[in-house]
C-alpha cells in the first residue's frame, strides 16, 4: 500500500492513473443513478461499510484484537447524532459539532471496554466484546422507560441531514440541468471522507504506532520485550477503531434520517468483521475490497435471484430473500476455503509492493 502512494520513479503514469480513478469516482453516482437511485444509496452504504471495516481493521487487522462488538461504537455515534440533531429533545446542532462529539464518546466507550479486558486472550476477548455490543444494543432498546432517552425499539425519526452554510444534503437541486439528489450529495461527501480515512489508515500502518500494533499482533511477548507498552498500544487501537465507528454512525444517522436499535445488532458486527477477514486482515486495500464485495453481493443477489428462478423454473421456488442469504452464507464459506488469508493477503502484498531499501541505505 505504501508504494501505491509513492509516485517516485513513474510520476506521469501514477498521476494519470489517479486522475482516471478520480474521474471514475466522480462519474459513478450519475451512472448508478441511471440504473436506479437505489444503487446510489446502496453504494453510499457500501462506502459506510468500508469506513467501518477500516476502523475495525485497526483493532483486528493491525493490533490483532478480536472484536465482535464493534457495531456498538457505530451505534453510539449514530445515537449521539440522532439525539443532538432531531426533534427528540429539540436540539439541532450542526453536524461538524456532533460528529467529533460522537467520535469522542465512542472513543471513551472503547477505552471503557478496553481497559479491563485487554489482558484477556483472543477468544475470551471475542466473547467479552460480543457481550459489550449486546449490552449497548439492549440499553438502546430499553432506555425509553422510565425516562425516554432513546425512544426504544421505535427508534428516532426526523433526524437532521447535514447542513453546511445553508446548503442541505437533503432534497434535490438542479445543477447544469442534472438532478443532484440527496444520495448523490452524500456520496461525494462519503467518498471524500473515505479517501481521507484510507490515507489515515495507510499512514498509521506505516508509522511507529502501526508497527507497534503489528508487533503486538504477531507476538505480544516479543513486542513487550522490545519495549512496546502493549497495554497503552492496545487501548489506543481500541480508541482509534471506536472513533472511526462513532463517526461512521453519525454519518449513517444523517443519511438515513431514521435509526433504531435494529441497525446495531450482532449480525452487523459479524458482517463488518467478515469484511475485514475476507478482504485480508491488516491490508487496507484488501479491507476496502472485502467491504465492497460483502456490501454488493447481497444486493446483486437481491436483484438477480428472483428473475433467475423465473427463467430456469418458470416460477419462484424459493423466497428470493431466503435464497440470497443462503448464497451469501455459501459465498462466505467458499471464499474462506479458497482464500483463507483473505482475498488480498496482507503479507503477500507487502512483499510485492515494498520498495527495495538497497538504494536507501
Amino acid at each position, binding site marked *: 500500500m505504501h508504494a501505491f502512494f509513492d509516485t517516485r520513479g513513474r510520476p506521469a503514469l501514477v498521476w494519470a492513473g489517479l486522475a482516471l480513478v478520480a474521474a471514475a469516482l466522480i462519474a459513478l453516482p450519475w451512472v448508478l443513478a441511471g440504473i436506479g437511485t437505489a444503487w446510489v444509496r446502496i453504494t453510499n452504504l457500501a462506502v459506510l461499510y468500508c469506513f467501518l471495516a477500516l476502523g475495525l481493521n485497526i483493532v483486528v487487522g493491525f493490533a490483532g484484537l478480536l472484536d465482535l462488538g464493534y457495531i456498538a461504537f457505530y451505534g453510539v455515534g449514530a445515537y449521539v447524532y440522532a439525539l443532538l440533531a432531531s426533534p427528540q429533545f429539540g436540539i439541532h446542532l450542526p453536524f461538524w459539532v456532533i460528529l467529533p462529539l460522537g467520535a469522542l464518546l465512542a472513543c471513551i466507550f472503547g477505552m471503557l471496554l478496553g481497559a479491563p479486558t485487554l489482558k484477556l486472550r483472543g*477468544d475470551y476477548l471475542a466473547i467479552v466484546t460480543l457481550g459489550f455490543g449486546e449490552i449497548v444494543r439492549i440499553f438502546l432498546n430499553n432506555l425509553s422507560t422510565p425516562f425516554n432517552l432513546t425512544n426504544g425499539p421505535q427508534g428516532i425519526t426526523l433526524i437532521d441531514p447535514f447542513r453546511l452554510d445553508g446548503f442541505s444534503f437533503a432534497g434535490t437541486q438542479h445543477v447544469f440541468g442534472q438532478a443532484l439528489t440527496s444520495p448523490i450529495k452524500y456520496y461525494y461527501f462519503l467518498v471524500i471522507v473515505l479517501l481521507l480515512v484510507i490515507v489515515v489508515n495507510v499512514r498509521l500502518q506505516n508509522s511507529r504506532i502501526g508497527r507497534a500494533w503489528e508487533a503486538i499482533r504477531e507476538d505480544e511477548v516479543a513486542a513487550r520485550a522490545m519495549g512496546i507498552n502493549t497495554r497503552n498500544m492496545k487501548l489506543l487501537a481500541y480508541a482509534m477503531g471506536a472513533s472511526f465507528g462513532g463517526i461512521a454512525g453519525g454519518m449513517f444517522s444523517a443519511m438515513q434520517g431514521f435509526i433504531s436499535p435494529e441497525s446495531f445488532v450482532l449480525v452487523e458486527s459479524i458482517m463488518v468483521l467478515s469484511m475485514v477477514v475476507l478482504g485480508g486482515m491488516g491490508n487496507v486495500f484488501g479491507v476496502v475490497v472485502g467491504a465492497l464485495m460483502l456490501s454488493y453481493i447481497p444486493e446483486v443477489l437481491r436483484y438477480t435471484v428472483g428473475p433467475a428462478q423465473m427463467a430456469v423454473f418458470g416460477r419462484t421456488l424459493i423466497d428470493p430473500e431466503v435464497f440470497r442469504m443462503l448464497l451469501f452464507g455459501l459465498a462466505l464459506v467458499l471464499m474462506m476455503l479458497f482464500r483463507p488469508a483473505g482475498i488480498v493477503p496482507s503479507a503477500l502484498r507487502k512483499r510485492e509492493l515494498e520498495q527495495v531499501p538497497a538504494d536507501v541505505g
Partner: protein
Amino acid sequence: MDTFIQQLVNGVTLGSVYAIVALGYTMVYGIIQLINFAHGDVVMIGAMVAYSVIAVLVGAHVSLPPLAIVVIATLFAIPVCMAVGYALERVAYRPLRNAPRLAPLITAIGLSIVLENIALIIWGRAPLPYPQIIETVTYRLTSHPDGATITNVQVAIIGISIVMMAGLLVLIYRTKIGVAMRATAQNAQVAGLMGIDVNRVISITFIIGSGLAAVAGVMDGSYYGVAHYQMGFILGLKAFTAAVLGGIGNLGGAMLGGLLLGVIESLGAGYVGEFTNLCHLSGWSHALALRCVSDPHLALFGSNYQDVFAFVVLILVLVFRPSGLLGERVSDRA
C-alpha cells in the same frame, strides 16, 4: 422467598439446557481451539426435526403414549444433528485447520447463515408451536397456595441433563475414545505420533457435541413451547458465554457455567425491577413521588434487561479471573 425458589427452579432448568449446549462448544474448543459458531444452529435443527417427527406422528394418530412420541422424535433428531455436525467439520473446518485463526470463524458464520436459511426454506419463517403432547403436571414446592412450583417438564429437563452429563463424563474419563480425546486436547501432534487417529477423534467430538445439541433442542422447544429458525442464535450465544464463564475447554466448567448463567439470569430478571425501583427513592424527590402514585413499579431496569446480566457477569468474571471459573491459568511463556 417463594419468588426466589421459583426463579431458582426456572434458572436451573434453563441452565441445564445452557450446560448441554455449552458442552458442545467446550469439547470442540478443548480439542481444536475453534469457536464453532454454527453450534447453536445445530441445536435449532434438532428442535426442528423433532418438531416435524412429532407433528407427523400426532397427525397420523399413531396410538403411542406421548412420552414415546417425544422419545422417537428425539431419536430422529440426534442422528440428523450428528450428521450435520460431522459435515460442518469435514466441509468447513478441517480444510482450514492450519489457516489463520479467524478464517474458520468466518466459515462458521457462513455455515450458520446457510443452516438458518435452509431451516427457513423447510420450516418457514413463523415460529412453530411445539405440540404440547405431554400433559404438563405442576407440583407445588411450598405450602403457599400461589407459591413456587415445578413442572414435570422441568424435572425431565434437569434429570435428562444430569444423566447426559454423567454419561459424557464416563465416556471421556472411562473409555478408550475418551482417552484419545483427552490426549488430542493436550497435544494433537503428539497424540498423532502415539497412533491416535486425530481426524477421527475430532469428527467424533463434533458428533457427540451435535448429539447433545439435538437433545438440548428438543428440551428447549418443549420448555418454551416454540421452535424458530433463529432460536439457535441467542441460545448458542448464551451457551458459549456459559462455556467461557466456566473456563472454555473444561467439561465441568461448561456444566457449572451453564447452571450459573441460567440461575443468574432468572434471579436477575426476577429481582432487578424490585432493586432498581425508583419509588424507593420517592422521599428524595417530590416529582418522583407523584409519578410513583400512578406507577408504583417505576423501575430503572426491568426484566427486559435479562440478557444484560449474562454478559455483565461474564465480563466481571473474566476481568477478575481471565480464564474462567474452572479454567487453567495461562501464563505467558517466553
